[in-house]
């Protein structure tokens, strides 16, 4: 293990990333789609008889938009970066080294986006109408370009295309198979969220007539986008690796047996959230005055659920990799996962464990920490105590032997001592099943011998049977 692993009790490092990321995805999509909304609403208000009233509301929307997107959006963006470097420093390092100038370019784009938003907002009273429209449109174009850049890096992780660790094909990495469909999906989603955000701000209006007009205008952003997302989603699906589709269609056997269908659940969470948003918005469009703030907040929460579903689906579709076919989710490089290297004692290649007695609980605990804790906790999220509740000492060691066969986990790194120590540690989470690592190893070895014994005895038994059969035939012939 090249880097230390951040052990977060109960929730795990991965869920910390997921919590920050889903909040950021919602806000960042609002930040871009909201720019388009501001630009279009600027033009729209100029063509309305009561344009001044609409613009007065638009200023309220812009205030909410600016505070919400800069405070929560910008800082959670930094937060994702901080959290991924804790959860997966090896993968973060690879992404940073491969895409450093793409990221630097995105930073300039973000700087411009932020500055244009301030110029638009602080020049509200003094900028000419045409210049305000220009700034709003410029803001949207610049913000969308920041998505364009980030989208290349995000989709690379699941569908790296022609890129390999050896060829460094940056163009192939960036414009990978998932790039365009993901860009279109995200563009549609940002329009949808912009409409929901505008409905939220409009729901606070006391002027019913104005509220009705703005809510109706905002609903027109939601419904077409909600219809487009499944179409682009189908396109995206066609670019997914076969292993991801197999996982979705067939599931995977979990650590404790049974079928791991989480990816399906997250997929359906996203689909159902999208469907509910579309239906609810249609109802709201029929009676826009009736929109209450609590309903608008509920719609925003549904959008958050949709984002949760989609982002978790994307994360699970990558399993067992964090960068497809290059780096496993627990920082094991694919090129290092040869049978010879995998069979070496785990601590011979790891740097971060203290001195431990072989087969002790501490031995098992550090194997868990460095090899499993990137994705699993002991008692909480993806908790191994629950997952291993049906384990016996022998079944545990055997499960670890064929870990990668499940399709969602990396191969186990280490020898039989490491597997026995880890099994002992996981079983000891339940005091009633606690067993020493050395005993686990003995039981496992006995079971292996017993399994091999019938095969070894087979020729002898077979020859006896054959002799008996021949004897019987001879007796028959003698009788004749």
């Amino acid at each position, binding site marked *: 293990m*090249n*880097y*230390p*692993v*951040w*052990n*977060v*009790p109960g929730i795990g*490092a991965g869920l*910390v990333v997921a919590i920050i990321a889903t909040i950021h995805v919602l806000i960042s999509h609002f930040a871009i789609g909201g720019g388009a909304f501001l630009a279009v609403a600027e033009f729209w208000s100029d063509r309305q008889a009561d344009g001044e009233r609409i613009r007065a509301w638009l200023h309220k929307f812009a*205030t909410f938009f600016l*505070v919400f997107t*800069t*405070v929560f959006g*910008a*800082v*959670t963006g*930094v*937060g994702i*970066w*901080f*959290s991924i*470097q*804790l959860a997966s*420093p090896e993968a*973060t*390092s*690879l992404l*940073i*080294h*491969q895409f*450093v*100038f793409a990221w*630097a*370019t995105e*930073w*300039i*784009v*973000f*700087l*411009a986006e*932020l*500055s*244009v938003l*301030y*110029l638009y907002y*602080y*020049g509200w009273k*003094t*900028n*000419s109408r045409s*210049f305000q429209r220009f*700034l709003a449109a*410029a803001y949207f174009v610049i913000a969308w370009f920041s998505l364009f850049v980030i989208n290349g890096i995000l989709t690379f992780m699941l569908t790296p295309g022609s890129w390999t660790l050896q060829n*460094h094909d*940056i163009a192939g990495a960036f414009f990978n198979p998932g790039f365009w469909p993901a860009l279109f999906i995200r563009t549609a989603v940002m329009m949808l969220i912009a409409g929901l955000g505008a409905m939220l701000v409009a729901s606070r209006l006391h002027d019913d007539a104005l509220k009705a007009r703005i809510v109706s205008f905002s609903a027109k952003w939601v419904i077409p986008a909600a219809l487009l997302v499944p179409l682009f989603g189908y396109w995206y699906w066609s670019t997914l690796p076969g292993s991801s589709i197999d996982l979705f269609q067939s599931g995977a056997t979990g650590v404790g047996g049974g079928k791991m269908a989480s990816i399906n659940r997250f997929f359906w969470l996203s689909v159902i959230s999208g469907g509910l948003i579309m239906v609810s918005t249609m109802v709201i469009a029929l009676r826009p005055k009736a929109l209450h703030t609590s309903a608008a907040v509920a719609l925003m929460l549904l959008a958050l659920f949709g984002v949760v579903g989609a982002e978790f689906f994307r994360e699970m579709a990558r399993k067992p990799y964090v960068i497809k076919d290059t780096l496993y989710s627990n920082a094991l490089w694919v090129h290092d996962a040869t049978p010879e290297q995998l069979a070496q004692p785990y601590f011979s290649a790891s*740097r*971060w464990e*203290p001195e431990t007695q072989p087969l002790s609980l501490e031995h098992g605990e550090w194997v868990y920490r460095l090899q499993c*804790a990137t994705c699993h906790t002991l008692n909480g999220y993806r908790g191994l105590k629950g997952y291993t509740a049906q384990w016996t000492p022998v079944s545990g060691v055997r499960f670890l032997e064929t870990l990668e066969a499940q399709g969602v986990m990396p191969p186990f790194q280490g020898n039989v001592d490491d597997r026995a120590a880890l099994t002992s540690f996981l079983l000891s989470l339940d005091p009633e099943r606690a067993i020493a690592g050395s005993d686990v190893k003995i039981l496992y070895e006995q079971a292996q011998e017993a399994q091999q014994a019938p095969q070894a005895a087979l020729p002898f038994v077979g020859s006896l049977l054959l002799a008996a059969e021949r004897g019987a035939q001879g007796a028959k012939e003698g009788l004749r």
Partner: protein
Amino acid sequence: MMALDWLVLSAEALPIPSPDPLGLAAPPVLLQALAYLTFTLHILAVDFTLGGVLLSLWARWRKLPGHASMTRFWRLSTPLGFSYLVTFGVPPLLFLQVIYGQFIYSSSVILGAMWIATVPMLIFAYGALYLHKLSHEARPRWQLPVLLSSAIVMLLVGFVLVNNITLSMVPERWAALYHASPGGVSSNLGEPTLFPRYLLFMSAPFVIAGMVMVMVGAVLKRWKETEKARQFSSLGWSSMVLGRFLLVLTGALLLWSLPPEIAAKVSAGGMETLFFALGLLLAMVSTGLVFQASRLARLDLSIAALVVASLEAAAFIMLRDQVRLDYLAPHFQLNELTVNAQWGLFGLFAVSLVVGLVFLILVTIRVARGLLAARAQ
């Protein structure tokens, strides 16, 4: 190395990760230059914002003459300052990770709990500044506690960052800290340079925010608001003097707390000496300029003082990086890093930088003209 005598491990036993297999996308000197440039901008934004919040609190608490105008100025400008301090904080960390990734990632994981805590802390401190601004009329009683809490949280974030950067330079500490707390509930409090370095960083805001107040005083003088101009200039000058005094004190403390062989390099005639001497010279020039600017209420001099102070910050930032290389010298050499240059992408970045800056300058001038014209009416 005195700082490390509590834990001595042989270099072979240190858990320093291997560098990234992809290598650097540009020669280290180019990445360093970009890191220096952007970190200077970040530090200026930090000093502006934190200094502004602290001066605003001081003016309000002491009920200084003109405190209403001063707090108004900082109330309107600190949320913007915060926004840019976050934005300018990204690229230096990016380039730092490219060059020193194996060090900064390791220390970040070891301090994982406090490192990730900076995210909600930044949101709180930033949000509090907007709350302070937007609730000014509706909730006047909130003003002081909200601003104070923002200042405290900002000071805490700075402490976390200094913890992480100092720990990244001392791999000798890593194993013990990580084994004691794999969940990252650790700190680098055992580091002798931690507090001097932190206090040094926290002294600079008084200088920069003070200079900004002198500059605003000069603008107010142009606008014929003589009394306000004098009040701004007076507080600005006092703040700058206090900041300079603290910088000298904490700078001396930092030099004293450095491992002797590294401290000796500052006077050994190498790059460290050059950057240190340059920083001191620029500090004296900027102090002289701001003195004149304050006395004569000259806008040009106050802008020149800020420009020179920015160069001073850049010189000390380069010294800081040189000291980092001295710390890491037993384990890390810049010239041993593999370079797989990506000139095409660098070109795209450079073009974006130029086009972006030109565009921003043009639109900013246009908006500023509108704002100034409106004020003139």
